[in-house]
């Protein structure tokens, strides 16, 4: 397992400067609700604004409204957004995952229809994989899509579907035959289809982003099938390097960390400074790894094992950061605090355990890593 050392080029640094300049004005402190990384607030207007600047769908082909740029360029933009706790909730999944997946697996018509909307920040995607009886073991999925005239009829329930409430589309993995792995197919489903009901599942911190999605004879035209019938499983593993290796796996707490470093740590004496030093060093090390992964993707490789290796430890590290900063606060942070950083820290205390569950649990990732190492 070897990561190549790499740094940003002059052009990439220019992009970074441009993004900073814009975000410093667009997201002045206090003008937006601070978010924890990828679970930032939902703000379609903000998503459209950065879409109009070319900072969404950056690696999608230009022909379909994308930027035709590299994974590293995307990383440069994303880390600026996450550092500020920006309201990325509306576009996050489409930009990171569904867009690239449609670009890789979709028909010409699908690409023309979906990719420009993703790049403009108009479409919001949700991932419909998990089901009540099927989490880690996705091969056991049961929600069915049956052939009907002109398309598919979907029945069943998806759960833990982040953002389904405000989504325009759900990219769902569905059972199309009994065959364990090759009986799974992905459909791009309009969130407002008849028979599709979304019910929020109140989350531990009181937020309502987490949803149950039930399908009752929902009709999906065959033109919304992503790739071949039975190809869903393979398409899913292809997405994983994008989903798992990014800076979003260790930057959730960054707004709090930045604030703590600049305004509070020094008052905590040597113990706080030592913790700050350790956290900084590890952030720097993780950043190098995420950047290295993005370069691998740009080189046409599929660093699935590397991405799993990072995510497994980065999500534990994020959780450690929450514990460290809370410890130095000296009391339990208050969700209702007037200090936005304290209330964000309070939310982090509550939701941090989920960071090593979403996107594949750490237990599952360890198996992925070991298989990769043995290859």
């Amino acid at each position: 397992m070897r990561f190549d050392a790499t740094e940003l080029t002059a052009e990439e640094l220019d992009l970074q400067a441009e993004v900073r300049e814009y975000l410093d004005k667009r997201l002045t402190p206090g003008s937006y609700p601070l978010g924890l990384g990828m679970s930032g607030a939902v703000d379609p207007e903000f998503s459209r604004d950065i879409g109009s600047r070319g900072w969404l769908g950056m690696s999608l082909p230009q022909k379909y409204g994308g930027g035709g740029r590299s994974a590293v360029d995307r990383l440069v933009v994303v880390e600026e957004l996450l550092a500020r706790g920006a309201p990325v909730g509306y576009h996050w999944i489409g930009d990171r995952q569904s867009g690239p997946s449609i670009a890789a697996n979709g028909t010409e018509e699908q690409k023309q229809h979906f990719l420009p909307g993703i790049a403009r920040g108009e479409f919001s995607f949700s991932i419909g994989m998990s089901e009540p009886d099927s989490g880690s073991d996705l091969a056991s999925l049961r929600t069915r899509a049956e052939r009907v005239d002109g398309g598919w009829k979907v029945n069943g329930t998806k759960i833990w579907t982040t953002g389904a409430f405000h989504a325009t589309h759900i990219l769902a993995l569905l059972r199309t035959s009994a065959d364990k792995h090759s009986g799974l197919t992905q459909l791009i489903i309009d969130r407002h289809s008849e028979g599709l009901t979304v019910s929020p599942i109140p989350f531990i911190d009181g937020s309502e982003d987490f949803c149950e999605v039930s399908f009752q004879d929902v009709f999906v035209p065959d033109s919304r099938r992503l790739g071949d019938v039975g190809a869903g499983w393979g398409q899913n593993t292809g997405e994983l390097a994008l989903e798992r290796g990014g800076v979003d796996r260790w930057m959730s707490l960054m707004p709090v960390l930045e604030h703590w470093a600049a305004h509070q740590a020094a008052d905590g004496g040597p113990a706080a400074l030592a913790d700050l030093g350790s956290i900084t060093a590890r952030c720097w090390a993780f950043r190098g790894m995420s950047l290295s992964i993005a370069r691998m993707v740009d080189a046409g490789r599929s660093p699935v094992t590397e991405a799993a290796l990072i995510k497994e430890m980065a999500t534990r590290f994020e959780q450690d950061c929450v514990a460290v900063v809370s410890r130095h606060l000296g009391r339990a942070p208050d969700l209702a605090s007037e200090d936005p950083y304290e209330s964000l820290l309070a939310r982090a205390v509550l939701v941090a355990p989920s960071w090593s569950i979403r996107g594949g649990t750490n237990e599952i990732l360890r198996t992925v890593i070991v298989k990769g190492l043995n290859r």
Partner: protein
Amino acid sequence: MNSVSQHNDYAFDADLEAMVEQFFAEKSDADVVAKAEVEGLPTGLWDAAVELGLPLVGLPESAGGSGGSLLDAVTVQRAAARHAAPLPLAETYLAGRLAVAAGLPVPAGIATTAPGSHRDTATFDVTVSGTLYDVPWAGAAAVVAVILGDRVVILNVADAEVGDGTDLAGQPRQSLTFTGAPAVIGENPVDVRLLSRLGAFLRSVQMAAAMEAVSTLTQRYVSERVQFGRPVAQFQAVQQHIVTLAQMASMSTLAVDRTAIALNTREAEFEVLATKLVVSQNALLSVRAAHQAHGAIGMTQEYRLQQLTRRLHAWRCEFGDEIALAVQLGRGVSASPSLPRLLTDPHPTLELTS
């Protein structure tokens, strides 16, 4: 094998890497390392390394070195550490670097440096008096290079009273006491942090390489060791140790590589501190995971693992312990305007106080 992407101007030399890897693989097996713990420096091995010019790789030929870049020096130290080579390679290189920085010729023969213990009492006027503590390979070295004030001072070990002692890996580590000893003093003043910076970096290089070796060794062992009718590698709980080892090694090696490249053009103080801190912390986790996965055999002297893990313990504490490094780094970060800007800066700089 190490490669560096086209996004950097510097690259590690794959031929050199292959050559030194083969050299140490052949010449520094477990028996050689064990014997050195009892008998001290294996002179045959040292002579063979000298013949290839290895101790002075990365030091300019004009000053008496073997030539090559810092990255070449890293390549040599890395291969040596992977095989726990019981040789003062890092120390000799470091002393050479100090000499060169001060405008002095690279010392001939085995050289070492004093890492700068807070107990040190050596001072110089025209001559040097006082004691230097915890000097690696002191007894085997011809000279010791130290920074006193802002000058590099080179002393003959023959003029010193040499104490006793070894580090946790059984490698010599002694005190040197001088009384009015004559010294060669560098013309150019040097940055007083030069020694601690390079020392911290070299120990990071060695630790990352040892972690790679520990990771490979453990992965191999658990796939051969059978319990309950199957290789223990098939148990998830054991796999977790394998994952930890791969994580710690790959993260450490990448940090070292990035810092090596940065050091080619600047002092890279931030990266050196961050790397030593991350690598030292990772070393402890690697040691625990590797021993746990090995069970009892890993604790025995006859088995290779302990030669590597004891070195990790020794190196972690040299040229900056974790608390000191973390406080120093944290103080710098707390004085800087923005943590994320620091992290995304290609040339992160900090106001550091030593």
